[in-house]
């Protein structure tokens, strides 16, 4: 500082001050960048979640085979009931429902009668069947990951299983392999492999790596943990 020309300290002080300001500003910019990055990451996560839900909705069965007959039955029953009651109220029975006969039968039939029990049982069984049909079930297509809400991509479940079996069989020493895809929420791939070696060593780990690697290339929306059950040759 002392070696410089007169006025240098002032200049240097100014430089130091400017440096400090620049440093502060750059720290501020870095902070803003970090905040923007976090916001972008959050937005990306949301987009992925939206896309995953949309894709799952696309591939989910609508149960039209159950829903359409049920809707038809509700429409016909409700419509016929309404027409019959309204026509009787205005004094011109439509005769869609045999009300008198039904009423006479119901007046004579006790709740404990086998026919009444059978009808009640049939209704309960039908209700149970409909409730079972309303459950999500196992989707035929496994959804792939992605952030584009207008793209629903997936892999046919049976084909996915075959691809994983193939990956397991490509490991030298594996004679047979089967794969089960389990769990709708916490997915798990269970590989059952049979080795032709008496002492397979780390073959289970190699199979696990091969299957996990194949899964990695398939980019599923819900990554699955891979478990291997290895049977060795015994003779």
């Amino acid at each position, binding site marked *: 500082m002392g070696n410089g020309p007169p006025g240098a300290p002032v200049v240097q002080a100014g430089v130091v001050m400017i440096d400090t300001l620049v440093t502060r500003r750059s720290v501020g910019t870095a902070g803003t960048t970090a905040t923007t990055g976090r916001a972008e990451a959050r937005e990306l996560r949301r987009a992925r979640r939206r896309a995953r839900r949309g894709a799952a909705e*696309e*591939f989910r069965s*609508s*149960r*039209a085979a*159950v*829903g*359409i007959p*049920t*809707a038809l039955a*509700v*429409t*016909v*029953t*409700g*419509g016929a009931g*309404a027409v019959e*009651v*309204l026509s*009787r*109220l205005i004094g011109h029975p439509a005769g869609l429902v045999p009300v008198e006969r039904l009423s006479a039968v119901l*007046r*004579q*039939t*006790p*709740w*404990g*009668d086998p026919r009444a*029990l059978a009808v*009640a049982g049939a*209704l*309960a*069984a*039908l*209700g*149970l*069947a*409909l*409730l079972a*049909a*309303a459950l999500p079930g196992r989707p035929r297509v496994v959804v*792939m990951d*992605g952030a584009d809400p*207008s*793209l*629903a*991509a*997936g*892999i*046919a479940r049976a084909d996915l299983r*075959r*691809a994983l079996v*193939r990956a397991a*069989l490509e*490991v030298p020493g*594996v*004679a047979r392999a089967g794969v089960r895809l389990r769990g709708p929420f916490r997915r798990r791939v269970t590989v059952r492999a049979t080795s032709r070696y008496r002492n397979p060593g780390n073959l289970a780990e190699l199979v696990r790596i091969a299957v996990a690697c194949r899964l990695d*290339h*398939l*980019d599923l929306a819900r990554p699955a943990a891979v478990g291997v059950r290895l049977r060795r040759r015994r003779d």
Partner: protein
Amino acid sequence: MRPVIGMVGAALLGLGGAGLGLGLADGTAREAVLRPEAFRHVVTHEWFWPVVAGACETAGLLGAIWLAGQCRDALGRRRALMGGRARRLARACGRDLRRETLELPGVAAAHVRLTGTRSRPRLRMTVLCAPDTRVNALRAALVEGPLERRRAELALPGLVTVLTFRFTDPPPRPRG
């Protein structure tokens, strides 16, 4: 539509369960399903039949709306419910998309179909590829290339595409 199926199922289960309960309980098993008190109740309450008629009408109307919605949904998943010009344009785009998809590495076959309505069109694609194909890379190539071009061509940048990958199926064999 599943929740509605579940609701109808729950209602039927409730009715059937109640009937079974009344039939199997000692106190009510010998009572008639329609008792004289029920008739008296209906006669003394004038609002009863209009309310029943209203309930039946509501059920019938809701059932009809549900039926129409399901039929439209089921048809829309399989067919293109849109006018002639839009359909022709979509068919031409589908052919181009199929041809360009077949040029991508690993793709053995591709089926493209435009379904849905004019307001909610869907492009359904099934891509058959070799078993060792890197599906994530193939999807990226498909989306960034042919699919993006077809969306621009149809002037539908947000055209929903349902893409199903399948693998060709030579039987897997063990190595070594």
